[in-house]
């Protein structure tokens, strides 16, 4: 069974700063996807970024980038030039490529961006 661990329950930074959220996972699968989801107070689940395990290049989406270390089973999210609208819960998630593509989520990190 796969597990996803987010060791930072809460983080807080000033607007415009850079912040990194940590995630580790455990799996015996060789091919999988990793995701970061954002959940604002509206509770809508919003996909932030996706990484395919077979790709060595780290994914980037505008101000969001990841540091994917496959051997260490680590998948951190970096938010550059943070904005007030980035305030939300952030969830790391794992999905095996084979089978029913069930998502396994971490416990979440509550990120607050202060003005």
């Amino acid at each position, binding site marked *: 069974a796969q597990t996803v661990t987010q060791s930072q329950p809460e983080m807080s930074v000033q607007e415009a700063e850079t912040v990194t959220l940590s995630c580790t996972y455990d799996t015996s699968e060789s091919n999988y996807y990793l995701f970061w989801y954002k959940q604002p107070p509206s*509770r*809508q*689940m919003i996909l932030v970024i996706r990484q395919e395990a077979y790709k060595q290049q780290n994914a980037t989406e505008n101000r969001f980038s990841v540091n994917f270390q496959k051997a260490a089973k680590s998948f951190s999210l970096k938010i550059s030039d943070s904005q007030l609208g980035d305030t939300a819960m952030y969830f790391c*998630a794992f*999905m095996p490529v084979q089978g*029913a593509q069930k*998502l*396994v989520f971490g*416990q979440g990190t509550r990120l607050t961006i202060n003005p």
Partner: protein
Amino acid sequence: NAGVTQTPKFRILKIGQSMTLQCAQDMNHNYMYWYRQDPGMGLKLIYYSVGAGITDKGEVPNGYNVSRSTTEDFPLRLELAAPSQTSVYFCASNQLAGGPSVSYNEQFFGPGTRLTVL
């Protein structure tokens, strides 16, 4: 497209009552899922379906039932509500790998149903 829709948005149940949470998607996705999110926690999979007529258990299926008679709908049934089922319930869907959608691995989530059992 409306995407994934869920009804109701909020519901309060008494212990022992039953109810059905509705989920529908208009993207012709084969896969559909039900997750629950307890306060301060991540989502956990309750049940999923890989197509009409096919369902299977996830990580936390006890106390729930599902059916998938059409591609569009995937209702979740609570038969005897218990306080431990107080949670936010999310329905999601995605396209079978290899389908025409560009982002075929992305799961699209509904807005959630907040359920309180007293």
